[in-house]
């Protein structure tokens, strides 16, 4: 009988169960998608640019498992909160505690099994879709990637099976500890006094130390390597949790007191609301912060790998294209590109020697890299010195390293020795061999002309094929493409995980919204009755949620900014264009904030009259 009653109770809260199930299903699907890659060694080896890739996946799995663990506990807490009033009533009417406990256990397990089945299926489907989408967007091939990968299915089921069992037992224990009255009164808990001074100071110190160690390891990742990676993985989340638990309530108290002095009516209600529930929120917000760090970090990492292709290309040569003896078609294409700088030189080749015209070089001084290493690839200077008359080959030439760098870069591929001689116009004309021509061009943005470069490479390849040469095109664009090809798997993983983590973050915050909503409906109705305008209530909600969103957002971003050092031993410049992922994240987060505010206002505010 009790079971029938419980099922009918569940049905009446279908909406909340759908949210709960959706959150669980998403986290399982995400976990599964990660596992399809983590267990597929073939795919990883083929697609990753990182040597210690197994370790990276080990660490990734650990972090994901850790966050998922807290997430599941939180979700199950939500489950308990959905049921406690009803269970309290049953107990008041004389249902035995053990019976209710068993019911809770069964319910947790049923919810777990349902979400596990749906989640795994969804995970497989999502893997197919995301795989296709990503390889289209990023213009990459994913070889060896299987959406349905049995070891991943097995591991996911095992992992979540254990997790659900733990949380079922945990829920049962919590239920057993509570008095009937506590259950009946539901979330009507007294405001717990802020944690005692000593405990808080201790937690703050421990949190600072942990976070400090974590950040230290991230900053000196290049030196500490594997050890640093492991330490940072453990210490950073630990520090985050400790600091959130110790500082957030205190911080809110401070804010509240400040606001009180200013006596601005609605705000004191807003802060009252927040500090009333902040104790229950700290762990969730810390989890959200970690999820943000992981999500934004994964996207930033993926983008960094993509950017690294550009860095690799840019450091290979200063000019975006160089075409030797362009034919009609190539010329037409070159003319259709807006170059910020277009240079044209003539040269002649005899035996193994290249001849350049001194006057031409003098009148068109090129740009070169300030230093010839990859770290300073984007610092360019124009050659100031005179073009060296004479040859690089016989002794009458004092090598000018700047011109040397440039002229060697210009040497055609079939001239591998790269000996050259700079002669004046007259000498040049007297040379018997055929005059040849090279066009160099630099645009404002290499990436916005990808189609043109591809076409130029194709035409060049045609030319090479026609000449029955064994050479393949070697251009800045081909370097870019090659690099992107190697990194694509990694870029894909980054985006994939980023989206996954951000989705989990979203559902974490959604639980918060829904657990609070029932009580808030009454509060806001009461305020409305005593004459507070709807707009002010709406404002209060905006304000409250802004603070809820702000703290984990800031903490998460700070983790990302420090954490990008993680890639410093793989990437030339992990921080290159870091504002792009930060902007992407900020946008997603803001949109999500607005949606949440809207949703919450719709749930708790009385309708417009």
């Amino acid at each position, binding site marked *: *009988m*009790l079971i029938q*009653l419980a099922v*009918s*109770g569940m*049905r*009446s809260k279908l909406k909340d169960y759908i949210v709960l199930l959706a959150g669980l299903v998403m986290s399982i699907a995400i976990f599964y998608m990660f596992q399809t890659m983590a267990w597929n060694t073939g795919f990883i080896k083929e697609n990753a640019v990182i040597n210690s890739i197994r370790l990276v996946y080990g660490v990734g799995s650990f972090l994901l498992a850790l966050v998922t663990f807290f997430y599941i506990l939180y979700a199950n807490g939500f489950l308990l909160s959905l049921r406690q009033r*009803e269970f309290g*009533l*049953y*107990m*008041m*009417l*004389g*249902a*035995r*505690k*053990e019976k209710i406990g068993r019911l809770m256990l069964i319910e947790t397990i049923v919810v777990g099994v349902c979400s596990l089945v749906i989640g795994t299926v969804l995970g497989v489907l999502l893997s197919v879709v995301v795989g296709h989408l990503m390889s289209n967007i990023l213009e990459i091939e994913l070889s060896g990637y299987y959406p349905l990968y049995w070891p991943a299915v097995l591991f996911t089921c095992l992992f979540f099976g254990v997790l659900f069992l733990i949380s079922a037992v945990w829920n049962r224990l919590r239920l057993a500890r509570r*008095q*009937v*009255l506590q259950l*009946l009164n539901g979330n009507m808990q007294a405001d717990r*006094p802020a944690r*005692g001074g000593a405990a808080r100071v201790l937690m703050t110190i421990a949190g600072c130390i942990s976070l400090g160690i974590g950040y230290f390891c991230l900053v000196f990742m290049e030196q500490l390597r594997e050890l640093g990676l492991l330490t940072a993985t453990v210490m950073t989340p630990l520090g985050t949790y400790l600091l959130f638990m110790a500082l957030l309530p205190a911080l809110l108290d401070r804010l509240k007191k400040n606001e009180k002095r200013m006596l601005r009516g609605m705000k004191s209600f807003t802060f009252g609301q927040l500090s009333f529930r902040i104790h229950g929120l700290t762990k969730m917000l810390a989890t959200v912060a970690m999820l943000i760090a992981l999500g934004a970090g994964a996207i930033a990492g993926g983008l960094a790998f993509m950017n690294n292709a550009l860095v690799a290309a840019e450091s290979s040569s200063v000019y975006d294209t160089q075409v030797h003896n362009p034919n009609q078609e190539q010329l037409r294409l070159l003319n259709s590109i807006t170059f910020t700088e277009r240079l044209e030189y003539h040269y002649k080749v005899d035996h193994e020697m290249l001849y350049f015209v001194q006057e031409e070089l003098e009148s068109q001084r090129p740009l070169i890299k300030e230093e010839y290493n990859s770290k300073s690839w984007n610092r360019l200077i124009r050659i100031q010195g005179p073009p060296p008359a004479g040859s690089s080959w016989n002794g009458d030439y004092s090598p000018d390293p700047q011109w040397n760098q440039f002229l060697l870069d210009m040497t055609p591929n079939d001239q591998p020795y790269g000996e050259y001689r700079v002669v004046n116009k007259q000498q040049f004309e007297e040379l018997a061999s055929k005059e040849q021509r090279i066009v160099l061009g630099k645009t404002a943005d290499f990436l916005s002309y990808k189609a043109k470069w591809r076409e130029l490479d194709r035409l060049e390849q045609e030319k090479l094929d026609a000449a029955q040469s064994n050479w393949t095109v070697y251009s800045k664009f081909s370097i870019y493409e090659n690099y992107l090809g190697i990194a694509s798997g990694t870029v894909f993983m980054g985006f994939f995980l980023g989206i996954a983590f951000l989705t989990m973050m979203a559902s974490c915050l959604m639980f918060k919204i829904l657990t609070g909503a029932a009580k808030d409906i009454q509060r806001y109705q009461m305020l409305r009755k005593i004459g507070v305008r709807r707009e002010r209530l709406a404002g209060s909600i905006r304000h409250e949620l802004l603070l809820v969103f702000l703290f984990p957002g800031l903490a998460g971003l700070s983790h990302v900014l420090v954490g990008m050092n993680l890639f410093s031993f793989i990437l030339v410049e992990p921080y290159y264009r870091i504002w792009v992922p930060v902007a992407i994240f900020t946008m997603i987060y803001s949109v999500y904030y607005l949606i949440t505010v809207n949703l919450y206002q719709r749930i708790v505010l009385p309708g417009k009259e």
Partner: protein
Amino acid sequence: MTKPVIDIRQVSKLYGGKHENKVYALNNVSFTMVEGEFIGIMGASGSGKTTLLNVISTLDQATEGTVMIAGTDITRMKSGQLSDFRAKQLGFIFQDFNLLDNLTVHDNIALPLSLQDVPAAEIKQKVKHVMENLGIAELADKYPATISGGQRQRTAAARAIVHEPALLLGDEPTGALDSKNATSLLETMKKLNEEQNISILMVTHDAMSASYCRRILFIQDGRLVKEIVRLGPRESFYQEILGVLSEYGSARSSGE
């Protein structure tokens, strides 16, 4: 002499943890209630009425003292036994009706029986009986959200007595009702008490409600401070209650 339904001796209840201020919500309370009595408990808010009721109703434990209900010492019982005890011996009516909004009025009333796995035919017959008794038979298939406050409270009352408990407990059962609905609920309770000999213990701070009782205990700061018994008509009892209230009310406010 009739046997006691409630017999509590030197009961105290202390609130507050290690680091908080300790509050005696109940301080050395003793009283006895015999079968068939209709007792009211009155007092200012915060005086300990709800706490007393919760201790009697086994929902909360006393810090000290013994609580005997229907001849059993509930302070010695285990949680399972307490549940069974509540299921068989006690009925509750609270200020907020505590109905499940996903069950019909009929199913809400049937809840104490169906939780005990009473056969369906018997449930049907018993629920029908109480619903007719309380004049809500025509509401059987409605949901709590679609009926009035008075009807909800009568549904709660029906649920509280459907299993024929030894003791009916009410915590401000009329608190959320207007005077017409309150009166009708009180008349119902009076009827139950007089015709079916159900013992009723009701907490209230409203003198009109209290005037339906046969005996009233006054509580102040966790102590029982006065007791009056109805001897004459309800009207004069009402006046007497008002007198006691003003006496203790003023004593209290001058003490603060």
